[in-house]
């Protein structure tokens, strides 16, 4: 049951209506049942993993809080980390490490006879594991007190709008919302419903159409397409993955809002970024925040020498790359981003106050162009099945090759235009000199209403047949 399906619409409307008819206490119970039903619709067997994670962290949270001795507290935290990360490792990375080990040993001429295991990857395991872990970590750091109610905690871990692909919510920003009384407000409902619509449009109209008609055919047969098509497909993938993931996040935030909850933002127009550091302040914010708080800062953050900082950044981005999937392409993608972040810091230090530095400060368009070129080029590694296919793609990009030119349907160009409008609005919001709230002016409101209706019409006609899974569900 994906958000962009009739089943979800039916499920959500039913939950929404019943939810607002119940008392707060029952609302939480209902959310928990609905969340488990939602997850069981994918694969009921993996519900046990969520339940294990929930029970472990709830128990460990109390134990850490009750314990005064630092060593024992650390021991409890370690036990939570070991259990959660073992589950994650087994289901997500076991085969990857077996494969890599085998490849390495074979390279040394050693036959291992190791075989990969037949493991199914549970949907959204990286998301809910991290969410549950953040609870124990925050209690250990003294930023949170354990929650008494196991049911409320279980509802936090399994909250269906963000269960399978985020945003990654921290316990301290969500648990109190579950405890607070909720009242239906039309204003919040309006915000949520329109947010959901926007997300659905991004996912179905922009991401799915770009994927089906442009990105997938070109990435499947790199050698068979012209250099121009490869550039277009690379940009297409950049737009697709953004529309897909930000679309999901918007649907999650919108669904939660309609239920009276506030989830953190996950994107802030990443393709307006004028440096790689800026890009990571706009892309997958909740994941970046998680790794910053629990990995980068734990390693020492930037409160150390430049080389140590370089090391911290690289390790954090490598782990974040690996978080995306069990493949060397993700690790390399993360590593390269880390390298670029570090180089940006070094460059800023070197050019600070110089003529070049002053020029670059003014020439935002040049910084933007260089940043976006780097981001797009790195998406190739992210999208490719292996490093060999990534290298093939790069070769096709920079060595002019003849090949097929796809006859793209009009809907692909419309998807690009819709994306440009979306980011254009973001740009105008960021650069508008008039910061007053003119979006609520009457004529503007009518225009906005027209745009939302146009989205609905576009969805009615621009929905590719069949369901396309969200890209981030695999992570």
């Amino acid at each position, binding site marked *: 049951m994906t958000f962009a399906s009739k089943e979800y619409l039916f499920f959500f409307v039913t939950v929404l209506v019943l939810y607002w008819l119940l008392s707060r206490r029952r609302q939480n119970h209902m959310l928990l049942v609905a969340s488990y039903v939602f997850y069981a619709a994918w694969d009921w067997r993996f519900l046990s993993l969520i339940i294990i994670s929930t029970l472990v962290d709830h128990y460990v949270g109390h134990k850490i809080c009750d314990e005064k001795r630092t060593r024992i507290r650390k021991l409890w935290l370690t036990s939570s980390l070991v259990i959660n990360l073992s589950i994650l490792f087994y289901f997500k990375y076991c085969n990857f490490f077996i494969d890599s080990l085998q490849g390495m040993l074979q390279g040394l001429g050693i036959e291992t006879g190791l075989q990969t295991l037949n493991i199914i990857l549970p949907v959204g395991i990286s998301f809910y594991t991290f969410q549950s872990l953040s609870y124990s970590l925050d209690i250990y750091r003294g930023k949170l007190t354990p929650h008494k109610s196991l049911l409320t905690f279980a509802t936090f871990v399994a909250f269906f709008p963000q269960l399978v692909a985020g945003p990654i919510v921290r316990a301290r920003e969500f648990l109190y919302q579950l405890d607070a009384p909720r009242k239906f407000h*039309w204003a919040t*409902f*309006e915000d949520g419903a*329109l947010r959901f619509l926007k997300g659905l449009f991004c996912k179905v109209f922009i991401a799915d159409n770009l994927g089906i008609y442009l990105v997938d055919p070109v990435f499947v047969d790199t050698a068979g397409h012209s250099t121009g098509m490869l550039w277009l497909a690379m940009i297409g993938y950049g737009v697709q993955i953004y529309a897909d993931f930000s679309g999901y996040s918007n649907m999650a935030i919108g669904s939660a809002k309609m239920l009276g909850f506030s989830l953190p933002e996950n994107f802030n127009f990443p393709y307006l970024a004028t440096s790689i550091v800026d890009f990571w302040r706009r892309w997958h914010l909740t994941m970046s925040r998680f790794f910053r708080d629990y990995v980068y800062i734990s390693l020492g953050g930037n409160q150390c020498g430049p080389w140590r900082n370089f090391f911290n950044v690289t390790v954090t981005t490598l782990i974040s790359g690996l978080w995306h999937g069990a493949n060397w392409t993700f690790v390399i993608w993360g590593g390269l981003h880390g390298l670029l972040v570090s180089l940006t810091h070094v460059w800023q230090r070197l050019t600070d106050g110089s003529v070049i530095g002053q020029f670059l400060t003014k020439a935002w368009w040049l910084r933007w162009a260089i940043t976006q070129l780097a981001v797009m080029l790195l998406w190739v590694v992210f999208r490719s099945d292996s490093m060999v296919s990534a290298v093939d793609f790069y070769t096709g990009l920079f060595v002019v090759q003849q090949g097929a030119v796809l006859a793209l349907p009009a809907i692909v160009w419309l998807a690009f235009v819709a994306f440009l409008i979306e980011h254009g609005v973001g740009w105008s919001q960021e650069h508008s000199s008039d910061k007053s709230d003119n979006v609520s002016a009457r004529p503007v409101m009518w225009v906005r*209403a027209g745009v*939302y209706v146009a989205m*609905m019409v576009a969805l*009615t*006609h621009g929905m590719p047949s069949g369901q396309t899974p969200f890209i981030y569900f695999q992570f």
Partner: protein
Amino acid sequence: MFRFWQRLSLDAPLLKRVLLVWIGLELCVAFILPSVLPTRWYFDLYLPDKAVESTHKFLAGEGYLKPDVNVGWVNQSNLHEHHWQTDQFGARTTATYAMERNGRGRVLFAGSSMINGGHLASNAETISGFLASNELETMNFGTMLHEMDQVLIYYRHYLKQFQPDLLVVGINPDPVSGLKNLYIPLRRPKEVYMPYLKPRFEYKLGVLALLSVDPQWLSPLPNQQLLHILGEHDAYYGRFERYQRTHFMPLSRSVDYLRKQFSRVSKLWQGSDENAEHLLELLMQLLINEAAAAGTKVVFLAMPDAAQFRGGWKQKLHDDYGDRLARLKKRYPVIDVRKLFRESGWRQKQLFQADRVHYQPAANELIADALRQSDLSCHILHSCQQQAVRQ
């Protein structure tokens, strides 16, 4: 309602405007535009590009079927495509036969692709193929999407000349819907490979009148004359009118979707379309009479699809196959293929192809054996049974 609207205006002014624009546009698209815009434009949108392409190919005589002024379409003659082979008459046979009789028994098959055997079965794996022998000529004129009205016309204009001893006619799983239809895309919009025109009979005030069609009416596509004829004579034209009102906007489309689902479910509690059933019986009777006048016996095969074969709760509520068969069996020689399949003890996958409509070769063989042993086919097939050489 007023209070709700007031609340919405105060707390959610944007949502209110979205609802207003949306509903206004829905009403405009559903009720104003169809009377302002030319129907031709809608028809252009209604027909998928693939259907237009298929029409051009069809009119140019390319593909498995070719246009026919009497029947609408018939099999292409002398075609050899993979498993599919037709002779100079457009029949699927296992040997070459002349039109003139030469002392051997002759059995003709007519009906839809279920009789024809479809693309996946070779000529020898069709029902007719399993019956063919040195003593018996079997010619399979089964043609994709042919209905009982077309079978009758086909017999009148072409098949009669072959002077068969026996004519085996397939009754489709739904043999009545197509009798009210002139243009396939109106009844089956997803049938993009066969956007053809078919003749139909209209039974009004005790008179059976034939509405002939000319495939050339499809050129150019669309044209006002065609739309006018369809509006007058195709019972499914209303679907196209509904398309004009409901296809373009999300709310009307959703309402139409729900209406379709509801009508599909409610059909389970409704009786069958008596007028169409009566027309079917009239056509069968006419076929029997005209064939008998030429010395030909007719046997009908009531052919179920997988859903009708399997049964289930829907069939318990409304068994259209069983009801129709019970009625037809009283008056006509009909072989119950569903009973045959069920008694065989075979599973659905052994009998039906993946499309859950067409039969596997083993099922065709089962039907051929039943035909051979049936009293309904009299001595025609019995006498040949001894020498039947089956592959």
